[in-house]
């Protein structure tokens, strides 16, 4: 897999110590990462009023919500908060058997001239981000699109750059990295776990109970 040009994604299994199976981020570590990302967002943008945080279900939704709360806390800014399901934009529907269930999409306003920050739990092949960007374009013409991922586990298959990464977690393709606890109850504690591969393909990241 050729690594793309973005420095954030230069992850190889030899350069970074490999995490063992188990919890790799607990709720406090997640919260710390999201606070750091909030600061990075504030640093990067002069004008925060046009920000539109869009969570990709299921995992991205509570993360976007927490991120919005963090921004409110550190910069006293109210961001728009949306939910964008990417299922209908996936590139692998035709080749498979049963169709995956659709998830919620709630975009409270158009994205025209806004800076949209897509929030996902685990960045991996880049295909979900690609689908999310296509979906986003159906809601208007954003001024810019940036991407937050709580975890980046590498193995990119598309030239997708993650702008804000909570933690790089090198992993085997066969392993799974999942965000647990993502539910409609946004107060529920979250944790990221690395699961040993069952010998199947690279699959992960729908959030436990998706």
């Amino acid at each position, binding site marked *: 897999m050729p690594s793309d040009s973005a420095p954030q994604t230069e992850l190889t299994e030899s350069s970074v110590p490999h995490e063992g199976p188990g919890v790799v981020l607990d709720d406090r570590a997640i919260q710390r990462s999201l606070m750091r990302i909030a600061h990075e967002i504030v640093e990067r943008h002069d004008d925060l009023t046009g920000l539109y945080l869009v969570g990709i279900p299921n995992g991205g939704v509570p993360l976007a919500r927490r991120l919005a709360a963090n921004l409110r806390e550190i910069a006293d800014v109210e961001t728009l908060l949306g939910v964008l399901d990417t299922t209908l934009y996936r590139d692998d529907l035709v080749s498979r*058997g049963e169709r995956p269930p*659709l998830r919620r999409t709630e975009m409270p306003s158009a994205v025209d001239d806004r800076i949209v920050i897509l929030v996902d739990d685990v960045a991996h092949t880049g295909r979900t981000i690609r689908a999310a960007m296509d979906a986003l374009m159906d809601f208007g013409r954003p001024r810019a699109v940036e991407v937050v991922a709580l975890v980046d586990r590498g193995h990119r298959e598309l030239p997708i750059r993650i702008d804000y990464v909570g933690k790089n977690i090198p992993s085997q393709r066969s392993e799974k990295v999942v965000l647990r606890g993502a539910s409609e109850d946004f107060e529920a504690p979250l944790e990221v776990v690395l699961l040993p591969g069952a010998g199947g*393909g690279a699959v992960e990241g729908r959030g436990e109970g998706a």
Partner: protein
Amino acid sequence: MIGRDLLGIEDLERGEIELILETAERMKEVGRREVKKVPTLRGRTIVNLFFEPSTRTRTSFEIAGKRLSADVVNFSTSGSSLKKAESILDTAKTLDAMDPDAVVVRHQVAGVPKQIADALDAPVINAGDGAHEHPTQALLDLLTVWEEKERVDGLTVTIVGDILHSRVARSNIYGFLKMGAEVRLAAPPPMIPPGVEALGVKSYTSLREAIDGADVVMVLRIQKERLEGAFFPSIREYAATFGLDRAKLRYAKDDAIVMHPGPVNRGVELAHDLADHRPSVILDQVRNGVALRMAVLYLLAGRAPKDGEPAEEER
């Protein structure tokens, strides 16, 4: 979870109905967007095979397919294909050679979608066959009731009119029963199908008794030409005994809704003002039709021949 074809509600399990309704709920959001089109079925071909004219249903499937970016081909014949001595299997084989990803079949004779499905590789969606089933209509009716009442379980649903010849009634009987509702039928006795109680419904000859305490009153279209004089004496007598108006509706629950699969014979089965205003939800039914059919096409069209696990996403 869901089979290859959608031939009738009789074949579905409750979980499958719920999956379709939940999917339709998501599809409704797509319909509210400014760009009402998603690329999901790009490069897929859906054939609308209509042996019986039905602008409403065909258009609804066509819009649904197009919103999912499928190519929709209308293959309408006037039902005379068979008079031209083309057998159903010939039609099916001809279609199969065109390699469609889904075939939507409407026919005036019960069972034809099943016969075509047996001969085709592509999934077949029944868009109404004779007096047998009209599954997508029942599903959109369920969706409408679900949205209105936030449940189906425990509701009382009364279906009024020509049950005997109605595919909508049959599909709704199966659908509402499977979703936990009580289903009652009301019609002049010749229009109550023989042995219908075996399906788990109760039939009434008194409209008042049938709608007493009902949450939903579903009124069926009366085909005057076919029925008058043979199944009831006159339209006037039918309208007086089984036509629904606000006075008769008082026996139903205060928040009862009125449904009709359309098109309405105003003043026959349904009073004029009931057709247009609350508690009638007829236009909601139509709106839900597109989203529901998008859901069905999403779940069935172009699926790999063998059922597999849900595709796991590679992020």
